[in-house]
């Protein structure tokens, strides 16, 4: 009989960029149990939010995560705007949506590269990260920074598009769409990649629902759930788009879902750019927020992100609480890794698209 071993991995390890500790109990090559040790990136942001004003918090929540920074401020702004009872200009909502979708493209492409690297497909990593620079160029052009764009503010957005911006973005979107189609063909036909991901990290539809898994991870298991459609925010109500789902529930299906989402996002950005209304991009708001509490939901690149904000009528929030998508998806890891090979570990972890900075805060 094979010996039972306890293998510690992390917090500094080659598979993920971020610190996260694992302990695998293995028998031979099979994983029996997985324990996750998190908290290395915990900075205490929720507490810090209470000590700063709403405007200062905006820059703090933006730095919860460097990949999906815009979506955090979107959720925060939405909540505070609801408490304030202000009507955000429609053009501002469109700009918010455009940046959200650009960020989704950049996040998914980054993820595809990381998965490729973990699957031993380094070329894919280099390809996707090269093309990801195109999105970062667009974001830098419109906001002035590659990451942490500081686009949102309470009551609207801080930037506006010019006609020159729109033309240059549209041109680059064509390239991105073309490349996304290329990757879709690549990940579904490249036999080594398919062999490495097909059937790995299986999560059934029932388990996906029972464990409350969110985002592309659950959509790849056939659960048709997307906040953008189910509870529209910003300008999503007016945009035509399809929610991408797959039924296989393995790492390959998650890859296909995300690449198709990139194509969908490119189309949404194009539509939004061509159909955005004219007008103001922000309204003036009061510094003091009336007492009350609010829940704000958005669809981050990794899944549903929930913000709870409580105000006591001062310049500072009384409580800010976030439930990030990675935290919801982490519970599925021990489930997916059961009876798996140790060598499949990195792929299972990568396929969920973990963001520890979000989960630990």
């Amino acid at each position, binding site marked *: 009989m094979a010996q039972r071993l306890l293998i510690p991995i992390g917090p500094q390890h080659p598979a993920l960029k971020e610190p996260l500790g694992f302990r695998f109990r293995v028998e031979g090559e099979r994983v029996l149990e997985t324990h996750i040790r998190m908290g290395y990136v915990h900075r205490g942001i929720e507490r810090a939010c209470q000590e700063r004003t709403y405007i200062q918090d905006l*820059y703090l929540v933006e*730095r919860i995560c460097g990949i999906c920074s815009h979506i955090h401020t979107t959720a925060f702004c939405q909540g505070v705007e609801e408490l304030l009872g202000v009507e955000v200009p429609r053009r501002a909502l469109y700009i918010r949506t455009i940046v959200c979708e650009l960020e989704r493209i950049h996040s998914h492409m980054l993820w595809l590269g990381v998965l490729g690297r973990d699957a031993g497909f380094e070329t894919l990593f280099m390809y996707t990260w090269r093309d990801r620079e195109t999105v970062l160029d667009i974001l830098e052009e419109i906001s002035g920074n590659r990451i942490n764009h500081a686009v949102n503010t309470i009551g609207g957005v801080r930037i506006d598009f010019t006609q020159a911006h729109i033309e240059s973005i549209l041109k680059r979107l064509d390239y991105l769409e073309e490349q996304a189609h290329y990757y879709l063909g690549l990940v579904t036909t490249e036999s080594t990649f398919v062999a490495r991901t097909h059937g790995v990290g299986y999560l059934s539809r029932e388990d996906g629902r029972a464990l409350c898994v969110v985002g592309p991870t659950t959509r790849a298991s056939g659960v048709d759930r997307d906040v953008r459609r189910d509870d529209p925010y910003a300008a999503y109500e007016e945009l035509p788009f399809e929610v991408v789902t797959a039924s296989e529930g393995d790492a390959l299906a998650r890859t296909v879902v995300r690449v198709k989402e990139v194509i969908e996002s490119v189309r949404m950005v194009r539509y939004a750019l061509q159909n955005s209304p004219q007008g103001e991009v922000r309204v003036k708001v009061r510094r003091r927020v009336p007492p009350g509490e609010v829940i704000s939901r958005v669809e981050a690149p990794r899944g549903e992100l929930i913000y709870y904000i409580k105000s006591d009528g001062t310049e500072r929030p009384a409580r800010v609480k976030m439930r990030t998508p990675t935290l919801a998806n982490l519970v599925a890891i021990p489930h997916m890794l059961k009876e798996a090979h140790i060598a499949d570990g990195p792929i299972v972890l990568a396929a969920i698209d973990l963001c520890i900075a979000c989960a630990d805060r």
Partner: protein
Amino acid sequence: MLDGLIRWARRKSPWILHFNTGGCNGCDIELLDALTPRFDVERLGILQKATPRHADVLVCAGPVTRQARDRLLRIYEQMPEPKWVVAIGSCACSGGVFRGCYNVLGGIDQVIPVDMYVPGCPTKPEAIIDGLVKLLEGI
């Protein structure tokens, strides 16, 4: 003469180890970005390694959290001499936006000696490359 040769060799191919001590991912990704086709520092001999025992330069991103402190020290001690530390991002330099959070100790220099500070939130890949070049010039 031998010293000169060793110094020359060290300058030519610094191997880096990346550790996130509690950052937001932004700088970590910009560091990886510097390795990918647009900037491609690998062509200059800069390689990212997975273990501290192979690395010459420790690149840290993010403020040091209480949890990460011991791990950072351990990684630093596992690296062979001579070793250099580069702090990338405003958080790694001084604590940045997270200064004053209850779980944050501050910049990297609160725990281990730092040789090069690269500010920015997040740092651009160009700035990281510039920082590394300046570090190597001083060797």
